[in-house]
């Protein structure tokens, strides 16, 4: 039964190839999920503002809708600038480019849609908040 043994070898080789491919493919898929930028939490100038890439992608926006004209792709680049303020948004910079009341809700409205505060930041990063004497009556 010679042919059968060759078949086994081939099968083994094939399996190895498939397994290796699956491993890489799996990694690639994982990378793809990271590729969309994930969830960004800004902590400057105030703690904390959340930006979810997924929600914006689902609106039909492409990477180049914002990168690199409005935002550098590099994390923290916007925060490093002195002009990353609400006033800049009102002037049509950064988020304010779309969040002007026409393309998307105005930056002057719905503060807590993006501002998740210190409490939201602590939840997102798993920090235990100091309780103070906050236990209720």
């Amino acid at each position, binding site marked *: 039964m010679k042919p059968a043994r060759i078949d086994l070898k081939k099968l083994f080789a094939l399996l190895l190839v498939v397994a290796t491919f699956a491993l890489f493919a799996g990694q690639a898929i994982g990378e793809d999920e990271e590729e969309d930028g994930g969830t960004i939490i800004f902590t400057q100038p105030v703690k904390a503002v959340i930006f979810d890439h997924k929600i914006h992608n689902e609106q039909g926006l492409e990477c180049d809708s914002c990168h690199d004209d409005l935002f550098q792709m590099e994390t923290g680049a916007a925060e490093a600038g002195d002009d990353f303020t609400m006033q800049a948004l009102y002037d049509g910079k950064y988020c304010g480019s779309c969040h002007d009341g026409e393309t998307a809700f105005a930056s002057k409205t719905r503060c807590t849609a993006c501002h998740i*505060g210190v409490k939201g930041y602590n939840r997102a990063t798993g920090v235990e908040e100091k309780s*103070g*004497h906050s236990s209720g009556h």
Partner: protein
Amino acid sequence: MKISELEKLENEGTDKLPSEERRRFLKFGLAVTGVFLGGSVLSLTSVRNAQGVTGAKPATGKFSYPKHYTMVLRQNRCIDCERCKEACVKTNHVPGYGYRTTIMEQMRDIGGGKTEPVFMPVLCNHCNRPPCVRVCPTTATYKDKETGIVMMAKERCIGCKTCMAACPYNARYFDETAGVRAVDKCNFCWDTRISKGETQTACAEACPAGVRIFGLLNDESSKVYKLIHAPDKKVWVQRPETGAMPNVFYIND
């Protein structure tokens, strides 16, 4: 039935309330404090304070102080950056286990399975009828006749903490610092800033979103007066049903 007619009725209190009625109320998360007539609760609050539900604006000339300090909180602007808390801690040396002001959070359903937080800054309400002052056995906490601020004379505090239990706003904590050992609370930065000529509390100055507006209620040109008396805005206070008559007002603006 008009309020004026209701006022003539005797408040039957809550002890005659059938338990079913009481349960139905508590299910809504409401306190049962109201007038009860013939099997239905007509008001969540006693008629005397019914004004508190609709706006709680202080009656002109009533509870007026020569320098009537008050704070208006424009709640919808609060983003919980907590700079107010940081400024307060720094200014008034508040220990980590207590607070003079803090921010509460509630998740609001905005439909479509999504929620958005609502942040609510809280502090001592400097009530016109302060329950804490009423229960203090040593007059360590008192209502200042000049400013209307509810003050602490810490040297008279014996640490019985009755005021902490009495406060409907959970605005007091016990400061265990050696040499202090007294209840502490917000006093509108009276000793640290206002009595030294500053016009703003530490928290109001630190707020980047213009949430906290501090000023004189008896000065018609002040921002607080204008906000509280804005004709098209709803002004509310925390827990009006307690009848404590706060001097801290909330508005969405």
